[in-house]
């Protein structure tokens, strides 16, 4: 981002920050009535809008100093909270996410038992340790309440888990009143886990500050940090001052509004974010930064692409997919209102790739990534999608992960299909192809009957089931929904859902009702099975045959085009998911017949009396049912066609010969 622009924005921001800046004033001076706390600022510095877009509940002003040698951060946070609960609040829970990275914490226990997507915990290593210690906790009007803090473990009663801390105030905060918390804390970042921490000289500061829970549906919603869960927070304003060495190249959520070189060799960078619900940052001395602009419907979006030096040649590739994705989201789902988007290519092997924070995402690539492998494109598209499904439509990721990861997987399939091709959106390399929609489906089919989509993320059977159902099944459910209500209708519904619920915390019910509203159909029968159930969809062509009607005649000879056949086709519903299907029957005179079956019974037979034999039968000939667990049994041909098997056999023989030649010639 050009510096002149930053400075102009900075002067505005400083005005906002000054009222929130952490004060070292003695407790006595601060013990005024809570109503004296500053209200939430109405700034619009980081958005392309002249008015706030969200109902702002929180304002965070954080002054943080990071020491890259010890991977520690000392922070002073001033949190202003607006009580919009409609009732007096006397206790406030806070997330201390970094405490998850301790051997007895719930996160590590679950990760050890179930596995995670990138870190193994065969043995505990000290570098994995992370912590977030509150050193002092003051509430304006009530003084120092550090001693009143207590860790709570509402989810699993694990007394060793310190990821949620609660404070009870001496007096409740009245409805519509403000309360201000002044918190001093010290972070010890772990070596990267769960998209936060350090690796070599890189650091990703995610979930790094004490963060208040969400008052939602009449209660506090502040879950412990689990191995399969992500986050949930209120919208607000963030003003963050980061002090770190001058050689560090820094990227962060929001816009950079000020930059000061300090005499001790450090720099202090100030960032401001409006209408966001989290703040993340990264630093490394080795980032190479590319800048670009996307002209969005609400105004220009500055794209900042921070690449590893060995990946610099892929900067254009990242910029291109980012812009293409932005373009599709704007056209299909709604406007991107923020002025910035920072895309970070994190340190290799850092378990920091593929993560989303407001206006800040991490990609994932390697130095050798061929053009035909679309991993960088997939990750960038997916993480950008989270700006919509999580960033703006801020659903509860602890309880309804399918609403962010799942809907995002669906839009990922749609957009990558459009940009990279339906069958080549994952791979188009050396004659091999793979499409995103099929991989999403396969991710689900391996764990089809373990968990429903609508299950709390930390209650899934295991990590793979969580991933398969939350990502893969949701995408497949929505793709299959296109068959019922049409592709355009689903797109309209998702668009309406975004426009209606952006900057709020909708639920799954809100999403499903929006679909029913747009389609004008009662889809309860489908959602009950697909969203709330674990029914498995599997139809098969059980059998078919064609018998000459004159089979009993002696010396009867079959003549093509003349002999009349009684043909029977049997379709079987193997699974317990009821779904209407189309069946295409082809005859050997090239005639085709399309049948429809509601799938209510366990099987159905179709009978024909024609001058042709049945040549093949195919269920779902248009390939619209993405929930079907087994695609191979969806069709059957009368005559075997051995070419596919012979082709694979040839590969197999070639590899076997290579192996045996190598063995023989090397070892003798």
């Amino acid at each position, binding site marked *: 981002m050009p510096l002149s622009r930053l400075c102009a924005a900075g002067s505005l921001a400083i005005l906002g920050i000054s009222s929130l800046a952490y004060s070292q004033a003695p407790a006595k001076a601060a013990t005024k009535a809570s109503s004296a706390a500053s209200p939430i600022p109405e700034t619009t510095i980081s958005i392309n809008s002249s008015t706030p877009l969200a109902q702002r509940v929180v304002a965070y002003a954080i002054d943080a100093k990071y020491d890259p040698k010890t991977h520690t951060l000392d922070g002073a946070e001033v949190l202003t909270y607006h009580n919009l609960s409609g009732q007096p609040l006397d206790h406030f829970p806070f997330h201390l996410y970094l405490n998850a990275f301790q051997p007895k914490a719930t996160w590590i226990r679950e990760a050890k038992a179930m596995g995670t997507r990138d870190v193994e915990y065969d043995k505990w290593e000290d570098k994995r340790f992370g912590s977030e210690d509150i050193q002092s906790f003051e509430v304006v009007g009530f003084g120092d309440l550090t001693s009143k803090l207590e860790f709570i473990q509402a989810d699993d009663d694990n007394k060793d888990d310190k990821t949620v801390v609660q404070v009870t105030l001496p007096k409740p905060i009245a409805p519509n009143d403000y309360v201000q918390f002044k918190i001093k804390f010290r972070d010890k970042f772990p070596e990267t886990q769960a998209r936060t921490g350090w690796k070599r000289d890189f650091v990703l500061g995610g979930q790094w500050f004490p963060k208040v829970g969400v008052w939602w549906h009449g209660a506090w919603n502040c879950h412990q940090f689990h191995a399969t869960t992500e986050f949930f927070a209120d919208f607000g304003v963030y003003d963050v001052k980061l002090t770190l060495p001058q050689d560090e190249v820094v990227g962060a959520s929001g816009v950079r509004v000020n930059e000061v070189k300090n005499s001790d060799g450090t720099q202090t960078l100030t960032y401001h974010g409006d209408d966001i619900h989290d703040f993340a940052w990264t630093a490394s001395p080795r980032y190479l930064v590319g800048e670009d602009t996307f002209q969005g419907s609400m105004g220009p979006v500055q794209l900042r692409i921070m690449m590893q030096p060995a990946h610099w040649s892929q900067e254009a590739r990242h910029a291109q997919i980012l812009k293409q994705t932005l373009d599709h989201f704007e056209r299909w789902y709604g406007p991107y209102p923020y002025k910035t988007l920072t895309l970070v290519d994190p340190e290799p092997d850092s378990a920091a790739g593929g993560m989303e924070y407001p206006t800040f995402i991490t990609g994932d690539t390697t130095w050798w990534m061929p053009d035909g492998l679309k991993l960088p494109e997939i990750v960038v598209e997916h993480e950008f999608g989270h700006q919509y499904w999580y960033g703006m439509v801020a659903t509860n990721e602890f309880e309804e992960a399918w609403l962010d990861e799942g809907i995002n997987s669906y839009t990922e399939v749609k957009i990558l299909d459009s940009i990279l091709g339906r069958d080549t959106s994952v791979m188009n390399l050396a004659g091999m192809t793979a499409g995103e929609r099929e991989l999403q489906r396969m991710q689900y089919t391996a764990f089809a009957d373990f968990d429903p989509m609508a299950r709390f993320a930390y209650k899934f059977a295991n990590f793979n089931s969580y991933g398969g159902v939350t990502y893969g099944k949701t995408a497949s459910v929505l793709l299959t929904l296109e068959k019922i209500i049409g592709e355009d209708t689903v797109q309209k519904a998702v668009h309406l859902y975004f426009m209606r619920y952006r900057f709020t915390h909708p639920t799954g019910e809100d999403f499903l009702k929006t679909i029913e509203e747009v389609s004008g159909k009662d889809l309860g029968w489908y959602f009950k099975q697909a969203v709330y159930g674990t029914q498995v969809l599997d139809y098969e062509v059980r059998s078919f045959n064609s018998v000459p009607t004159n089979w009993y005649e002696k010396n009867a000879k079959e003549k093509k085009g003349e002999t009349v056949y009684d043909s029977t086709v049997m379709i079987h519903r193997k699974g317990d998911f009821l779904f209407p299907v189309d069946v295409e029957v082809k005859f050997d005179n090239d005639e085709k017949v399309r049948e429809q079956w509601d799938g209510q019974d366990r099987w159905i037979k179709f009978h024909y009396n024609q001058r042709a034999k049945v040549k093949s039968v195919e269920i779902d000939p248009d390939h619209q049912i993405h929930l079907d667990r087994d695609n191979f049994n969806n069709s059957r041909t009368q005559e075997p066609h051995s070419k596919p098997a012979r082709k694979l*056999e040839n590969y*197999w023989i070639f590899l076997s010969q290579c192996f045996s030649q190598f*063995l023989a010639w090397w070892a003798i």
Partner: protein
Amino acid sequence: MTNNKNLLSAGLHIVNRHKRFIVWFWVLNLAIAWFGAIAFRQAITSTLDHSVLSGRLVHGFDVPVFIEMMSRPDTGSTEVPTKSSAHFGLVFFLVTLVFLPGVLENYTNEGRLSREEFFRACGRNLWRFIRASVLFAILAAVLSSVLFPAEEKLAKVAGNSTNELLTFYTEIACFAVIFLVMTCIRIAFDLGQIDAVFRDQRSVVRSVLRGFRFAFRNLLSLLSSYVVIAIIAALILFVGVCIWHLAVPPSSILGAFLVSQLVLILLLWTRFWQRAVGAAFYLRAMAVVPAGYVAPEPIAPTTAVPAPVSGPPTEVPPV
């Protein structure tokens, strides 16, 4: 360099003079692999032969379709076909062990051995070759237990660097060193086996030691010859796979078969070439053995004169 060139061309001359061995070994290689693939064929045909979906594997290679096929219960575990092919791979290993002495006997003779002589050489040397293989396995295991952990450690250290490519370069360098060390050992054993065959040496250890002596006295020349041939083999594989990918239509089973088998024949040819280089070198070395050396009774082929050495041993060689 000239010496090296001569060695390569001498080896090439030998291997081209006995092309039939390559053909025979290729036939065996293919037949054995074909038998090994029966389990795989049976596993996939039930899934593929009557499904419309399998067409997506013919006109391209749809990876999700392939994965779905492999993960179906009907296809079964990949363990059975993999084991089957591995076992048949061992059969080819044993076949090579049996017939290689006959090949080397031919390589060290000017003429062509009769079938009887060929099999006699095979039988006479089988036990020696088995012992040589065991010795090689022990030595390779010892070296591997040192070299691979060292490679791992170096790669780990390099992994701490902020230079992302350092790990890659370190691994490449380590694997190059491991390849060279193993090739040296392989050269020594190749020469030992030739010695066992040529001198009818019963003591395998003595032959192998002799192989090591020869190898290390002429390491540069032998190693460079072997490495050049190995590079040619790598190029053949690379170019062959490229042709397979670019020139053969995805649906052409015959085209793919022909190209893949041509690649495999050429790979066999390169390894025979290495063996022939060893034989050529050995024959040259034997041409200048020490004065006190008593040549063993050569195996007298009935159809050809034994390979003549270039002159009577008269002086201590600068080998």
